[in-house]
């Protein structure tokens, strides 16, 4: 089977359990098992070649640009791990079928399990470090789901998050380390990296890479000081603990160290960091394990300890140690997974995992007892079981290794081994031996085969390897150790009896020490409980809570939602960045003289400064602010005229009128004054920022006005060609509708959208609480009751046709003289606006035949069709065309496509202004407003018997 398929099968299979659960729990479990079995068979097919020392490759380009490829390879090490992952995985799937309760959803469980399995297989088969990283992080994610599987348990949720945080950190460090490694080696392919030992170890980046990679490995394999997450991950269901936390995931770190052993090991840094960490972890884990009362916690810490042992062996950097490490990986996986499963059985049957509530189970559950007996004796390192063999090898290597002062290492290791023996004995002694008790939460007895079968199989291996190591495990150890060391294996022999060696002595000492420790467990336990120890979970929780607190604080302080603050930061940023940019080079010498200041200029300047000054002081009076804004706008218009830009001036004036009217309408619904905000300090701050901004804008403007173009500008082209090529004397208009007509196309759409938004906003307001509030608002008795004075009505009626005529005139002359669709639209809009103001909404709207939405839509369509029409003539969008025509009675006149476009502009402007007005008027209506059909408050044509219309807000009795 191609390697990629072995890795992919569990992922593909992960889709099945969720579906198959519909067919029942057995179907679900068997489907899952068959997926794993298929992958396992696929792996075993390669066994002969791999055990013969061959390496099998599979290559598939994925992202060649960066060197991330789906390359896999299978050598002894990969084979060993894949075998463990799939083999034990199969047992776990069977075990879990019988372990999970009725209320536990089985589909998700198996899905997560298969995801995890695929990720693990991926790690061990990857021939590309980036691909390996992908799988690495996937194990963190899938184990997060598995640990948190019992989501109703807070421990489960917290344990899952803790595991994710710790292993996630490691994963991120690993990313860094792997990329450095790949950069040094010049490839991300492991098979290449593994050949680059000299280059890597000579690189100045070796140490950073090593540390980062080791952080990744240590967090995954629960090495001190990252060991604390593993016990909390025990909140997971026992099959998960047995699978992830004894046999597979925690071994991923070991795998990584073994995998990179050929290029990373052998330096002082490697030896010191790895061996020391392993040693400390081994002792610490064993110590804590001895005093844990929770069966799974005991096993968890014992796992930590054993992982430390293997890490230490890898850290020694000698080939013999590597062989011992590989051998112990196999042995540990077998006995520890079996032990976890027995713990699960005890928990499942007795409903407790507390050692202090257990004891005497050997008669009640004999099968479980035998399994636990063999497995824990193996863990203790008792002869004829596999744990003994690898421990002997470890002790043998320790005896000839020196770490710090002589004899320190052997002594510490003996202590650790004694502790290890002690907790193994305790697991037996305090759970299975002793007297039978009366007070089990539930009287236990042996479970069905489904639960004890899988651990029994593992224990069979424990015994078989223990008895016939060379026959059973020999080839596998040789192949995988060969892969670790890179070929040459030292002399070693897998056998029980090596003669009287220092290792044997140490072993005997350790076992005796273990028995002693168990004898004195009771007083030691009391002391242990009495001593205060730093509790990892408390520290971790505090750190995380602190991080969240700090993050929240930073986020809240940064984003208080205050617009003034945001604006201030914007202003300061712009100022500083611009100032730095300005200062980074010199300013070109002024190329243009400043014009002499004329009288008009001075007056305009004074007016604008004064009105702005007053605006600043009285900005809280909203009506006054609006009037002052009008002053500014007018002066801007005048300045346009002054600089010979009548088009702009006309537009500006019309825009001023329309916007002031609309703003007045809006002010109607707002408080008359803005509430005062902030104190003197804040005002001072704002004054400084705003002042600096103003001065900055002034300096920039002055510089711009005096600077010369570096090269001829494009504007000369417009002046030259407006008449000849575009058929218009009014260059501004020609630019707007022709040269840059496409900009105008966008801008009229902006205008149209704005009106639509105002409309939508109004609808929203009217439909909600605000709308009801507005409709219910009381009349203001201080206002004049004369809403629609006759004079005004009459005047606006007279003005209407005149204004429309002016609009048409301005529109038509636009191309050659100041004017155009935009201004014309505004003028016409003002004409209609006046009718609304004078005669009221109801009267005016009743005479409105076209919806304003429609007018906007028509405008946009007209503009688009003008543009698209050019395509019919094979020209680009919006290409202009013009021609001169003669009709009887009138002068020669010009027709141009630009006029059609301008019509679109015109319609958009009219529609947009009117839609905005209509929306605001609708807001103004009160609930008790009657529909008014008369344009005036007083209807001159009324007969005497008709009642007079009563202005709202005045009671009928008081009227006149």
């Amino acid at each position, binding site marked *: 089977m191609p390697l990629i398929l072995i890795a992919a099968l569990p992922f593909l299979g992960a889709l099945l359990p969720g579906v198959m659960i519909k067919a029942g729990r057995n179907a679900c479990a068997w489907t899952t098992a068959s997926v794993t079995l298929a992958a396992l068979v696929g792996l075993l097919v390669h066994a002969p070649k791999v055990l013969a020392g061959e390496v099998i490759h599979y290559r598939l380009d994925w992202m060649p640009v*960066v060197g991330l490829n789906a390359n896999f390879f299978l050598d002894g090490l990969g084979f060993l791990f894949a075998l463990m992952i799939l083999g034990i995985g199969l047992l776990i799937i069977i075990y879990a079928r019988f372990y999970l309760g009725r209320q536990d959803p089985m589909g998700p469980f198996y899905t997560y399990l298969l995801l995890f399995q695929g990720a693990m297989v991926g790690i061990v088969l990857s021939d590309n470090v980036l691909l390996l*990283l992908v799988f690495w992080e996937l194990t963190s994610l899938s184990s997060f789901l598995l640990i*948190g599987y019992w989501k109703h348990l807070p421990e489960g949720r917290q344990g899952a998050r803790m595991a994710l945080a710790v292993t996630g950190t490691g994963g991120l460090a690993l990313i860094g380390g792997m*990329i450095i490694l790949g950069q040094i080696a010049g490839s991300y392919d492991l098979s290449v990296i593994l050949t680059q030992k000299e280059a890597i170890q000579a690189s100045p980046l070796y140490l950073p890479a090593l540390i980062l990679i080791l952080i990744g490995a240590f967090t995954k394999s629960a090495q001190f000081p990252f060991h604390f997450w593993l016990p909390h991950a025990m909140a997971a269901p026992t099959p998960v603990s047995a699978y992830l936390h004894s046999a597979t995931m925690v071994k991923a770190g070991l795998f990584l160290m073994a995998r990179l052993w050929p290029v990373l090991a052998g330096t002082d840094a490697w030896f010191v960091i790895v061996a020391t960490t392993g040693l400390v972890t081994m002792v610490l884990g064993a110590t804590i394990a001895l005093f844990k009362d929770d069966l799974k916690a005991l096993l968890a810490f014992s796992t930590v300890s054993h992982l430390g042992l293997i890490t230490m062996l890898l850290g020694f950097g000698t080939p013999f140690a590597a062989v011992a490490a590989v051998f112990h990986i196999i042995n540990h996986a077998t006995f520890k997974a079996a032990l976890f499963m027995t713990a699960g059985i005890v928990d499942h049957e007795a409903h407790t995992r507390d050692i202090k509530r257990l004891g005497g189970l050997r008669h009640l559950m004999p099968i479980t007892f035998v399994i636990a007996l063999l497995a824990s004796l193996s863990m203790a390192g008792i002869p004829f079981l596999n744990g003994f063999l690898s421990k002997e090898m470890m002790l043998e290597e320790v005896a000839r290794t020196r770490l710090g002062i002589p004899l320190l290492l052997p002594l510490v290791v003996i202590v650790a081994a004694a502790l290890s023996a002690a907790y193994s004995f305790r697991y037996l002694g305090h759970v299975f031996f002793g007297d039978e008790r009366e007070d089990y939460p539930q009287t236990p007895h042996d479970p069905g085969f489904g639960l004890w079968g899988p651990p029994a199989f593992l224990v069979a291996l424990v015994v078989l390897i223990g008895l016939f190591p060379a026959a059973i495990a020999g080839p596998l150890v040789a192949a995988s150790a060969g892969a670790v060391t890179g070929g040459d294996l030292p002399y070693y022999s897998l056998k029980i009896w090596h003669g009287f060696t220092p290792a044997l002595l140490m072993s005997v000492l350790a076992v005796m020490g273990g028995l002693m420790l168990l004898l004195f467990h009771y007083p030691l336990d009391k002391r242990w409980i009495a001593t205060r120890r730093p509790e990892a979970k408390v520290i971790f929780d505090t750190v995380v809570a602190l991080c969240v607190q700090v993050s929240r604080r930073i986020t809240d302080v940064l984003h208080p939602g205050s617009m003034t603050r945001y604006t201030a930061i914007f202003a300061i940023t712009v100022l500083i960045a611009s100032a730095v940019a300005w200062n980074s080079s010199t300013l070109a010498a002024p190329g243009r003289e400043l014009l002499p200041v004329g009288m008009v200029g001075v007056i305009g300047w004074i007016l604008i400064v004064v009105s702005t000054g007053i605006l600043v002081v009285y900005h809280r009076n909203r009506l006054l602010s609006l009037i002052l804004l009008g002053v500014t706008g007018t002066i801007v218009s005048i300045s346009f005229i002054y600089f010979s830009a009548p088009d702009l001036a006309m537009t500006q004036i019309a825009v001023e009128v329309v916007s002031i009217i609309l703003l007045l309408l809006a002010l109607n619904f707002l408080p008359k004054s803005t509430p005062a905000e902030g104190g003197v300090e804040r005002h001072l701050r704002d004054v400084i920022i705003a002042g600096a901004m103003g001065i900055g804008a002034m300096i920039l403007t002055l510089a711009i006005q005096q600077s010369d173009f570096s090269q001829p500008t494009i504007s000369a082209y417009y002046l030259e060609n407006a008449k000849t090529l575009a058929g218009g004397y009014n260059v501004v208009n020609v630019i707007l509708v022709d040269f840059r007509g496409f900009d105008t196309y*966008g801008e009229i759409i902006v205008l149209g959208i704005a009106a639509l938004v105002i409309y939508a906003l109004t609808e929203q307001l009217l439909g909600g609480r605000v709308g009801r509030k507005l409709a219910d608002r009381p009349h203001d008795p201080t206002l004049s009751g004369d809403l629609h004075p006759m004079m005004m009505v009459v005047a606006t009626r007279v003005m209407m046709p005149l204004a429309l005529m002016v609009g048409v005139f301005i529109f038509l002359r636009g191309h050659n003289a100041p004017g155009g669709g935009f201004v014309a639209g505004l003028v016409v809009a003002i004409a209609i606006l006046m009718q609304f103001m004078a005669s009221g909404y109801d009267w005016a709207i009743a005479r409105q035949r076209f919806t304003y939405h429609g007018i906007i839509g*028509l405008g946009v369509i007209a503009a688009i069709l003008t543009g698209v029409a050019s395509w019919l003539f094979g020209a680009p969008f919006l290409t202009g065309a013009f021609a001169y025509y003669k009709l009887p009675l009138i002068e020669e006149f010009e027709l141009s496509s630009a006029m059609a476009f301008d019509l679109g502009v015109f319609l958009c402007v009219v529609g947009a202004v009117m839609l905005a007005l209509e929306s605001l008027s609708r807001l103004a209506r009160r609930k008790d407003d009657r529909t008014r059909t008369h344009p005036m408050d007083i209807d001159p044509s009324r007969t005497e018997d008709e009642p007079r219309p009563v202005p709202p807000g005045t009671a009928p009795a008081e009227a006149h």
Partner: protein
Amino acid sequence: MSYLVMLPLVVPPMVAAVMILGMRHHQGLLRIFSLASILAMLALSILFIQQSADGSVHVHAPGNWRPPFGIVLVLDRLSALMVLLTSLLALVVMLYAIGSGWDARGKHFHPLIQFQLMGIYGAFLTGDLFNLFVFFEVLLIASYGLMIHGGGKRRMQAGLQYVVYNLLGSTLFLFALGTLYAVTGTLNMADMAERVAMMGPEDAALIRVGAVMLLMVFSVKAALVPLHFWLPATYAETPAPVAALFAIMTKVGGYAILRVYTLIFGPDVAATGGIFGPWLMNAALVTIAVGMIGILGSRSMGRVAAYASIASMGTLLVAIALFTPAGILAALFYMIHSTLAAAALFLVVDLIRARRPGESCGLAAAPEMAQAGLLGALYMAAAIAAAGMPPLSGFFGKMLVLDAAFAHDRTGLIWTVILGTSLLAVVGFARAGSAVFWKTSPPSDAPKAAVGTASRTMLETAPSPTLALAATGGLIAAIALVTLLAGPVTAHLDAMTMQLLDREDYLRAVLPLTDTTAPDAPDLPGGDLHEAAP
């Protein structure tokens, strides 16, 4: 081909105009037209990709005025990619909006979306700086309308801040354009590029101010710290489909930076001397940090998603700020990824919101929601994507960024920030997810009653919750597809990077050297501009 470039700026507004003219009150018709327009655009976008894949650059000059005098639209590999992303996102957003009923919760959703699309397309296609301003306005005003769609006090408040802040940006845009025009005398991007290239580092104060101001304008759009303040509240309060569409809006800023600061103010240009490279890098690093810290410090899912999009923009801009081929390749890949991921996250958050009492997405325990398993899976996928974890493309993007930053003189800092903050994101997403999906409270009567009295829940008013779920799932599937096709995608992006950095394709397509006899160009003062070019 050339006139096809124009279609994205003609079809959506045309459809929108027809909508407001004739079918304002027919929800069904609106939906059909909206979808039809988007599907047409999607087909066109695919054609664009295909047409530009060979490295050809297509120019269309509306009004038929020869550049630099008229406006040009330019389609190259990058524009085509951005247009495709937009169309793809639009389709998902539209399906979601229809399925969840969001489109009917206010007026004018469909025409505004069409106008919005036009604005986004325009920003990606234009080759003229002032025209870019115009399209910024189109998309700003349309997005404002969409943002406050559905109303509500908090949304209105956030909307006000959004529009005011962006108007500040627009004002700055005008200042920047004025300054640049004052120095270069042109607005056409290619022309400006040629003119700027001829200037020396001395007497360059004005051009530098202009360039830096322009960078800040784009940074506002791209939500670069400290110009990002409009984003958190806006994105958290915006209706979900709109927030998802906004995922491309920040990318407009990223795109503009990428375009203008490779084409006009590239790192080798003497006049600007690449002074903003280090600034951009620093700001981008801070942006990542602010975003990721925000993810961890958020009190609601909506905010989590908002800060995630800030962080993703930070990562994108770090890659851009490297200004190396590898960096730009990474940026482009991350652009695709983060657009899809951010959108997916917003949609998932909305799915959650529709199923929780009181329609809150706060991180407090609540009764288990409907379809918790499916939603949990979607959330997990979106979170993985947003946090840049494997197996989804975010991880690949991040790896590309890290790989590209390896040669930078501040590799250590960049790596520390990117990797360190990833951890914050992982923890933040895990916390949020565990609070919402795992930590359920027993169903109590109190919140139910509250919901019952208010009105029907969002889920109940949704015409087709399945369609909404499918749209979200489709987005996740698209992310998975990008991941699987990472090889071809990066190969295409590599060619895109080369085209961006080489500039020749673009410049010569817009300003052909031999073109002195064009029908519109008799001998004129501006006519011999090109000959002066090197």
